[in-house]
């Protein structure tokens, strides 16, 4: 059985669907804005599942009314990092929620080799497992 038959990173919302078009992304953003979320754009070329903190592209955008502003920021990020993973995050600032409520990938590198499992034998027959991206061996900025 293949563990990554689609050759796609599946993190966040909509990741098992085909890539969202710009119009669809805009609709999602519009939905979040209606709920009062603050959108932000993040990017990385190290999409390890444990790497929860990606790099921020600009500040989170509070007090926006329309998706056009967020789309402008996304366009700028895509221009700067065309081959990186880019995701949109919606922050809900409601008291006692104060966390990310939506997150989905909007930009992917052309080829996604995925992750390998490294087995380390320790103390007799025990095994320790490590998940390692196939492209993570290369230096930052040259991975995809």
């Amino acid at each position, binding site marked *: 059985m293949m563990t990554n038959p689609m050759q796609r990173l599946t993190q966040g919302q909509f990741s098992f669907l085909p890539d969202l078009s710009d119009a669809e992304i805009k609709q999602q953003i519009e939905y979040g804005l209606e709920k009062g979320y603050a959108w932000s754009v993040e990017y990385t070329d190290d999409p390890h599942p444990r790497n929860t903190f990606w790099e921020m592209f600009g500040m989170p955008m509070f007090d926006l*009314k329309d998706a056009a*502003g967020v789309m*402008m920021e996304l366009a700028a990020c895509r221009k700067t990092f065309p081959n990186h993973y880019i995701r949109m995050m919606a922050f809900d600032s409601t008291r006692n929620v104060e966390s990310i409520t939506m997150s989905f990938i909007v930009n992917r590198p052309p080829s996604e080799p995925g992750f390998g499992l490294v087995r380390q034998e320790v103390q007799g027959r025990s095994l320790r497992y490590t998940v390692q991206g196939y492209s993570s061996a290369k230096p930052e900025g040259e991975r995809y």
Partner: protein
Amino acid sequence: MATIAANTAVNEPGPSQDKAATVDLQAIIRETQVGEVLDQLDRELVGLVPVKRRIREIAAYLAVTRARKALNLDASPPSLHMCFTGNPGTGKTTVALRMAEILHRLGYVRKGHVVSVTRDDLVGQYIGHTAPKTKEVLKKAMGGVLFIDEAYYLYRPENERDYGQEAIEILLQVMENNRDDLVVILAGYKNRMDTFFQSNPGMSSRIAHHIDFPDYSAEELLLIARKMVEQMHYRFNAGAETAMREYIAARLTQPNFANARSIRNALDRARLRQANRLFESPYGIDMEALMSLSEPDIRASRVFTQGSGGEAETGG
């Protein structure tokens, strides 16, 4: 509504269009309820005849653009960036708020909110601070109207390293590229805006509508005073209105006159005096007394006692 009421259909020939196709312009006007906003503008704002005429024209133009769109007559969306010039207190901000509503009703802007900023909100303190700051404001204004008050402060010719120029460049770029996402309205005093445009020709040419707000006449100012008093749930009693008329005539000749704003300040001070008068009154007070501004409240103003001596806006 007469100016927009072109109840015949759009009948310009369109590319490969059925020339007999009609569209009901009145239906568009009814459905968007833009007439209501225009009427409200007429009712609530005193004077400003050229401004109202221009706004009607813009509303009519947008309604016709919608009608054309319904018949697939292609046209790039009109540029609606505006510049409001006029003396202080002539209603530039108020009209900008109404403008946003009109544009929203006619579907030109998607959300119809107004983001009101001044130089401080756009220009940064140090190198590299301006661009993100300006962009943040622009992003907030998307889908609505960006109202830049005292816009001429953005450009400071005396300091060539001023960051204002950078803000202007970003503004211009977004005004051009995101034309259907936001409308920029610049406001400021006439002569200073003129020098601002002279030094920034790119800005001037990107703004399609230059609207000049005339000063109010004494008669209009009295009308404004009446409306304000009504809004504050007060009323002028017998002599007070004559006193107000004389006050306006006297105030007009003095420096630092800020049209409606001066009237508002004068009324605020009259309210203070009225409160003080009631406070010191030994008798019981009824609703009538609480509501009425009387002649001495207005006559006590320094405008009357000082004659045409220079009275500051803070004076009585």
